[in-house]
């Protein structure tokens, strides 16, 4: 296979199953896919590699007809196509397996396939579908209890059902979005074998991932995306994992970490062998240990889905851990209530500002005291001291440059950036020892992002210890004194700022590389 750098040459036109030219898709505030041109050849496994937010899923959803591109073209087998919905894509023979399965959990495998299938008649022809599925399983060398309900199946098996559904519906091009993020190593190996068999029988596969090992093991060619743009499309045999890591993460780190005025002091937050389950009953945290000190920002990098959410929820008291300890200023707060943890000096910035951080129908002033409504300062006897609350709100609006017509404005009408400032004002204006921030700049534009960063650094210099959990690696690298990498519920590596090598971080985030402490 020849390697191709740069724009795809169309001399292989007939050979191409699908091709995009200058495809662009915008969402409010962000360009998710920016003039993406890439193509997939007949009978190849083509990987789309990139970090979170690189644009891989957006691109795939455009290919599947779920999103309509703002500009650019999609060509299927050489012909321009306009996909109005996934049904059009399915009709063409494009199938997609999403990260979050579109399966109906209490239904059996057969029922799920039947739901999608276009069969004649009133009654369900379960036998026929069962036979079809059985033979498909035989062809690809897998076995599955077709009568099991989806929730009873392992995640790997569920995924196989999604694949079966697509193939049963006639897919010749299969798109898989981060399929191994929920699989065990053995299941991953099983999946790879199936995919190879599919390639042999003439299917073409687009495999979206952030894991380098998989790219190298599985694909024929790989397209690397970063911040919505194509970095390059290369033949897998011609690159090394270091090459890929460099392309994925980028050489430039935006700014260097500013060393704080004071050296990091005593530990404010200590986590020892923390273990916790996620909502589905799986072990999301598999023994996290870390120590957060005064005057430092400890960044937790990692691709989403590796336990960050559960870590955040456990630290703030919403989720109870199964084992381990959390010490705040030496005090055991492992099973303390959220209220108690706040009172003992831990503030937080939640990942979903609108659902978790604010009451949108409350005013700015009311949101600024959310969680502090019982404090003596805001009360006059049994009543809320409206004057003081308003006064506090006015101070905060000025101090944090919150753009709002008044403190009585309902926060529903504020922009995302201003909402985040409200949360910042609320959390940073207290006397705290420790701040846990989760995705603090998600969905914000550059100006507000820089503002948030500046305030966080200020707070650090005042002596607060900040745990920064973020999927934005650049942000983590820019702000942190130390960086921990989280992978599958464990800390895969911990670095001092001066020792940070982007490649190495990329490898750890992707599950490769050695443990460094």
């Amino acid at each position, binding site marked *: 296979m020849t390697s191709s750098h740069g724009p795809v040459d169309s001399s292989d036109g007939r050979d191409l199953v699908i091709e995009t030219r200058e495809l662009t898709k915008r969402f409010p505030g962000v360009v998710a896919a920016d003039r993406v041109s890439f193509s997939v050849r007949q009978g190849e496994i083509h990987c789309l590699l990139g970090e979170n937010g690189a644009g891989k899923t957006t691109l795939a959803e455009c290919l599947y007809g779920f999103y309509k591109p703002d500009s650019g073209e999609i060509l299927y087998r050489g012909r321009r196509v306009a996909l109005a919905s*996934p*049904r059009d894509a399915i009709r063409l023979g494009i199938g997609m397996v999403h990260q979050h399965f*579109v*399966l*109906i*959990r*209490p*239904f059996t495998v057969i*029922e799920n396939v*039947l*739901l*999608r299938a276009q*069969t004649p*008649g*009133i*009654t*369900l022809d379960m036998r026929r579908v069962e036979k079809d599925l059985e033979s498909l399983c035989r062809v690809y060398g897998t076995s599955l209890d077709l009568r099991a309900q989806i929730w009873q199946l392992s995640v790997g098996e569920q995924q196989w059902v999604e694949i079966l559904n697509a193939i049963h519906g006639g897919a010749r091009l299969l798109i898989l979005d981060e399929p191994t993020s929920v699989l065990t190593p053995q299941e991953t190996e099983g999946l790879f074998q199936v995919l190879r068999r599919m390639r042999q029988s003439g299917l073409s596969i687009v495999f979206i991932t952030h894991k380098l090992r998989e790219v190298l093991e599985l694909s024929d060619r790989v397209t690397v995306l970063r911040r919505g743009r194509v970095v390059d499309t290369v033949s897998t045999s011609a690159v090394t994992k270091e090459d890929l890591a460099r392309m994925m993460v980028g050489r430039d780190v935006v700014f260097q970490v500013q060393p704080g005025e004071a050296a990091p002091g005593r530990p404010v937050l200590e986590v020892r062998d923390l273990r916790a389950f996620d909502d589905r009953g799986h072990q999301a945290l598999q023994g996290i240990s870390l120590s957060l000190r005064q005057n430092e920002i400890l960044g937790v990098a990692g691709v989403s889905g590796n336990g960050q959410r559960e870590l955040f929820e456990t630290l703030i008291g919403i989720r109870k851990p199964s084992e381990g300890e959390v010490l705040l200023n030496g005090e055991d707060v492992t099973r303390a209530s959220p209220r108690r943890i706040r009172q003992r000096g831990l503030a937080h910035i939640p990942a979903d500002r609108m659902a978790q951080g604010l009451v949108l129908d409350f005013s700015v002033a009311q949101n600024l005291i959310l969680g502090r409504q019982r404090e003596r300062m805001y009360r006059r006897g049994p009543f809320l001291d409206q004057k003081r609350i308003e006064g506090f709100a006015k101070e905060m609006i000025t101090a944090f440059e919150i753009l709002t017509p008044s403190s009585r404005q309902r926060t529903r009408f504020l922009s995302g950036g201003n909402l985040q400032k409200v949360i910042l004002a609320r959390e940073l204006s207290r006397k705290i020892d420790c701040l846990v921030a989760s995705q603090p700049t998600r969905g914000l534009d550059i100006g507000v992002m820089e503002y948030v960063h500046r305030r966080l650094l200020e707070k650090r210099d005042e002596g607060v210890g900040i745990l920064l959990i973020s999927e934005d690696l650049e942000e983590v690298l820019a702000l942190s004194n130390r960086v921990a990498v989280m992978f599958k519920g464990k800390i895969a590596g911990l670095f001092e700022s001066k020792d940070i090598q982007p490649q190495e971080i990329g490898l750890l985030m992707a599950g490769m590389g050695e443990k460094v402490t």
Partner: protein
Amino acid sequence: MGESLLQAAVVINVLATMVRTSTPLLFGAIGEVVTERSGVMNMGLEGTMLTAAFVGFLVAERSHSLLLAVVTACLAGGLFSLILAFMAITLDVDQIITGLAMNLLASGGTLFWFRIAYTQTTSQETPLVALLKPWPIPLLSEIPYLGPILFSHNALTYLAFLLVPVIWFGLYRTKRGLQIRSLGEDPRAADMGGINVRRLRYLAVVFGGMMAGLGGAFVSVGSVERFFPDMTAGRGWLAIVIVIAGNWKPGRILLATLLFAFLDAFQLQVQGVGVQIPYQILLALPYVLAIVVLIAGRARSIAPESLGLPYLRE
């Protein structure tokens, strides 16, 4: 007390009554399970039944045709439930409050209509209608013990019990049923699969209303000869509890219905025998049982996931 209750005749009587009193509960629950499987809760089931009971009575009294009465009651239930369908599915209004409003409407509305239709009467003089007569099935109804218990009831009772396997088949073995069930679990996934969520939900709600209509018909023309206000006495609510207790499965729903109906039949018998338990306690038992059943079932309860949530297609 012990021996007189256990005499064969008494047992047969109780069981036969159990089967009979199951009828409206079964209709209500079977209809409601289809509705709830599609993701909609009909809190106005009680009102639907009451409306149908009144309509059935009215038509029976005016037309002297019981068949017509039952059919109109059924249709009336379907029409009444359109209120819920329109508010909850098209307008995305809160299903629970809508249901409660429907109950109040039925309560006041049937009373109003009753008074203007029978303006000259006091409660002693309310017109009577002929009751639905039992249709003993030839041969089968003469089997000792089982005959009177199972095969000597009126048409509506037979229909109610027959509906259980029919609905089971409909829900689990037909395409439509599969689609309806998918609506209750994950309307987004169903929508992505090309199913018309709204239309199918309307169908499910109206079907539930029609079943409630049959249940209401039984409460009036199937059991007593007159109409009196609020005569459904909470059967609609019990039907909802039965659906929950039966874990939204027709087979279990049948069992739960029989449980409640047995309790009802048993307390009637106990009262008749003159046992020294105050009748109020016996009458309150179904409602207490309902709460107990709800608490006990909580751990295993597998409600349709999208029950009660409006589906907003953005």
